[in-house]
């Protein structure tokens, strides 16, 4: 089957998709977007988290056909997504994304395939600065989930962060530096208000 959808603001068309293929497989193997990771492919680890019409989902659990006509944001588009959100008068990130907003969102100015040339989003930079990246396999999913948390809640408590990221497994870091990174991104967003 053919699936038409938007990935990181760019219209995409996937042909010859087998009905059993997941959104994750289509992103990774057909779109050339391997940023979403294939760690468990059973919805347990969160490494493949993307936003589907603004909502964080495990892309391994979404059948490719379900995304027909919808908007997907992956880690490759996260920087642009955050920048666009910030430019639309929502610098704290606390204004949330309605379905309508998410549908109107589109990438501009950079290569939406790779994110190359884009400034990093605050959460991406914070992950690097706080030492929250080790092997990095969990990182894309955590970034998408953490970015969505900060969009909903600009000043999350530690308990809020733990709750929001409880669906994302990390085997390397012990999570402490991931907490640091989310706190750091939140603090930096506050400074820029």
């Amino acid at each position, binding site marked *: 089957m053919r699936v038409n959808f938007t990935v990181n603001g760019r219209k995409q068309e996937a042909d010859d998709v087998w009905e059993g293929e997941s959104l994750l497989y289509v992103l990774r193997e057909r779109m050339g977007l391997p940023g979403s990771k294939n760690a468990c492919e059973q919805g347990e680890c969160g490494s493949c988290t993307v936003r589907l019409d603004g909502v964080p989902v495990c892309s391994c659990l979404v059948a490719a056909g379900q995304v027909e006509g919808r908007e997907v944001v992956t880690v490759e588009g996260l920087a642009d997504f955050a920048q666009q959100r910030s430019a639309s008068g929502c610098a704290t990130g606390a204004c949330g994304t309605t379905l309508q907003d998410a549908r109107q969102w589109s990438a501009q100015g950079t290569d939406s395939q790779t994110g190359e040339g884009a400034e990093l989003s605050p959460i991406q930079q914070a992950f690097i600065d706080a030492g929250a990246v080790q092997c990095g396999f969990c990182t894309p999913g955590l970034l998408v989930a953490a970015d969505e948390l900060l969009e909903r809640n600009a000043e999350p408590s530690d308990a809020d962060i733990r709750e929001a990221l409880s669906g994302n497994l990390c085997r*390397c870091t012990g999570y402490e530096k991931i907490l640091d990174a989310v706190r750091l991104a939140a603090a930096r967003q506050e400074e820029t208000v």
Partner: protein
Amino acid sequence: MATTGTPTNITQGSKTKGGIGESTLRPDGTLKVTGEFAYSSDMWHEDMLWGHTLRSTVAHAEIRSIDVSEALAMSGVYAVLTYDDLPTEVKNYGLEIQDTPVLAHGKVRHHGEPVAIVAADHPETARRAAAKIKIDYAELPLITDEASATAPDAILVHENRDDHHIGHVPHPNIVHRQPIVRGDADEAAKRADVIVKGEYTFGMQDQAFLGPESGLAVPSEDGGVELYVATQWLHSDLRQIAPVLGLPEEKVRMTLSGVGGAFGGREDLSMQIHACLLALRTGKPVKIVYNRFESFFGHVHRHPAKLYYEHGATKDGKLTHMKCKIVLDGGAYASASPAVVGNASSLSVGPYVIEDVDIEAIALYSNNPPCGAMRGFGAVQACFAYEAQMDKLAAKLDMDPVEFRQLNAMEQGTLLPTGQPVDSPAPVAELLRRVKTRPLPPEQQWLAAGEQADVRALPGGLSNTTHGEGVVRGVGYAVGIKNVGFSEGFDDYSTARVRMEVVGGEPVATVHTAMAEVGQGGVTVHAQIARTELGVTQVTIQPADTQVGSAGSTSASRQTYVTGGAVKNTCENVREKVLEIGRRKFGSYHPAWATAELLLEGGKVVTDGGEVLADLVDVLEDEAVDLELEWRHRPTEAFDLRTGQGNGHVQYSFAAHRAVVEVDTELGLVKVVELAVAQDVGKALNPLSVVGQIQGGTTQGLGVAVMEEIIVDPKTAKVRNPSFTDYLIPTILDTPTIPVDVLELADDHAPYGLRGIGEAPTLSSTPAVLAAIRNATGLELNRTPVRPEHLTGT
């Protein structure tokens, strides 16, 4: 080539000096946060096929026949290979003993053993084709524990063993045995006022790295193959792969692809040979990516263990003697079992002074899943047991458990049971003091937010199983000792190639090693070392491949020591060459070129007094200095096979933990509130990475304390829980605050005084949590992981 994201050079221009001791950031960080970093499962080639492995559904059986005709006939299937299709007489591989078949022949020895491989144009086609392969199994009796393995009439897991351990093991179903006898434990026991005995069980833990086993094999025009793969040691893989393919090593070119964690689980081969075989057979690139289910069968696990301990102490709290027997289940194939036995036995006493010991460690062959390397490597199981014993002794003597440990703590100069002196700082008592004197987290912290209990901070969390009633707190301590590097006489060297030249008007260093970056941060540290030694800011780290000499394994906490040492050594030699060029060109202008100690700093040649003699740009001009050198640490020696005596280890690493837990005694649920750690790292080359390693290791220890276990059905030897639904690793909700206290007491024998750090925090974390749960509940708890039924008695 069309491989996406073929590993690329990483150049990090540093705004700061970025030398050792600074928390410089990962050079691969930006790639990793943007999704551009190419992991082994991201490799792609335009006309590639997908490989899939058919695995045995039974644990022990004769293979009567294999019928692949239906699979081969399927549209989209390019190859189906079994044992009969292997191209050479070499059909087995192995880290130490070549006992592991590339594909099962004659019989299968464990559940999930590879039997056949398929290449097809879509991964689902490959899976469906594999499902059509018909295998006729005749099941055999199972070896599942020590009793069944060593029974006089026991069926042999490996008939016709001819490895070098067979001469000194009491039964062919024992892979390796290491006794250690020092002093006279029976005589010393007579001086003991109290004696405690314990029997402990350590469950089978999995590395559960997130990046699944995967890679891409591309046939090359010269009949060889290029392999892009995630591994811990490229050259060890190469040594095992080439003979099976019937190719000389130079025709198997390996490049490290992004590694999504390892923790020991990538020391053994998984899909490497299979992908190469399929690529060579079909003439097309072949990618294999395990899913999570298969990953649980694709790598070896931590040895489950039974440990029998006896300790004695005088009434004033001095240890008199220790006797122990450690039985490790190595499963169907040897993997790293012999070395794990060496570690478990030589570190079975822990970081304590005990002069009279009687020790025996063995590893079994069985039909359970194969076990091998995992972070802590034999020292973890022992630490779990000896720390429980320390608490039992302290309780019997009515002493404080920390003071009791401190009273018997090893110091610099203490002899290990192998007779080897610990000839570097051993701050065991100090590490314990540091975790003990930290302020405790507030009681009933779930009330901290206000009057209303925040259930998220309680055992059971959002399941809302308690509001604090029936919840009791406990505090527990543990400390451990881990060796660093490969022991027992292994030639544990590393190689580094360093090039220095002027690029774009700036001096640039290029570092090329075969070190596997598995997330630990070696690439960060290598750049720091090059900056420190060569005085440049720009350092390029080339991708690890087999075009440069071996770096040894990224395991045993050894890489910063050994490959870091190799980079340092090569840089020092490059520096000398650069200074020679400088002397040649400028020596006549200033006497200091001949007389002073010269350094490279800030892109200049300077005297140790700080006087600038020349710019590196002017010294080098269009010359390049390029050296590839091997580097070795002090040699070690094998343990005597009867007495266990010998200077077997290179270096030691020490960590202590204090665990604070809250237990819901009604439901048997545990919340670890805090897990404080103190560790001596010798010298923190990158403090940020050091803390990250310590927290990560601590969390894996927490995991095996309360949730992680591969459950093998004792009746069928089948794995019951090969998924992240059923094999639980700690989430961010299960993991507490982990305050880290880093001590830096230099080891004079090591580069910069550093100590390997990656494993030590995994040792004491588990027994500290267990001690805290015992402290909270009063239960004995002699197995790990602790499950709710162990706490509620149901």
